[in-house]
């Protein structure tokens, strides 16, 4: 398809571009700034989450290593030895329950905040 000597090309080239409202640039930039802040916070959360997971992994690894090698040592002011692991399921249950409740609390707070913002 050749555009040269094309009647439609000539017609379209004379078609005026539509004007945008004056507030458009400001509105979009405001939304973009909000979006940028949201992305920054999300990345920050991901970084924290990764850090916590990595820390837990290494702590867990250390505990397993201590447990298998039956290592215990004494520091000048205290002694470190493997705790009784019989209570581990109980503490895990408590820990998981606390995390789930925190998550539910966070979700409810978000819903409340959204509702409140709409009302304002």
């Amino acid at each position, binding site marked *: *398809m050749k*555009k040269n000597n094309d*009647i*439609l*090309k000539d*017609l*379209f*080239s*004379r*078609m*005026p*571009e*539509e*004007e*945008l*409202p004056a507030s*458009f*640039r400001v*509105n*979009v*930039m405001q*939304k*973009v*700034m909000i*979006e*940028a802040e949201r*992305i920054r916070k999300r990345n920050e959360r991901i970084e924290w989450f990764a850090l916590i997971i990595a820390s837990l992994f290494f702590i867990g690894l250390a505990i397993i290593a201590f447990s298998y090698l039956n290592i215990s040592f004494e520091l000048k002011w205290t002694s470190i030895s493997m705790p009784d692991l019989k209570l581990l399921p109980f503490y895990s249950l408590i820990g998981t329950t606390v995390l789930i409740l925190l998550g539910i609390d966070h979700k409810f707070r978000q819903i409340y905040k959204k509702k409140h913002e709409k009302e304002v």
Partner: protein
Amino acid sequence: MELYTDTYYIHRILEGDTACFACLLDKYSRPVYSLIYKVIRNREDAEEFTQDVFIKVFQKLSTFKGECSFSTWIYRIAYNTAISETRKKKYEYLPIEESIINNVSEEEVTDMLGQTDNHQQIQMLDKALTLLPTDERALILLYYMEEKTIEEVSTISGLTESNVKTKLFRIRKKLFVLLKGMEE
């Protein structure tokens, strides 16, 4: 002359200088708005969808790998936004029979348009565009108004190059029929 390239602004934005997005906005907002408005024919909706396009551009900026030009990439988002929105609302268009499409030649239309003034010609074309289905309207606008090549139109629309050529050929014929019909 352009002071900085799109790539320069994209790098700055990805490094955290969000204000640089205003430069890309200044460059592309008007043509993107023009395209969307001419496809959907409603100023409020066109403004809203153009805003959506630029928010999507900002959100997905890190996924832009430079496989096509930045302009083509923005138009692809704009095209998809406009087409998906028009699918939600059923727009009416004038169906044209196959037998009529080949009945009008470009010469006839050129002669007919020669008898009208510039302003009237543009008005006729604008009216003829509204009678086309929205996807066809978008394709012809990309090719003629935004001056995209067949390859670029193919990248933007997701159609093959041969399909784009065939479609454009038929849309031109349809426009000729519609323009001729306006004279009668």
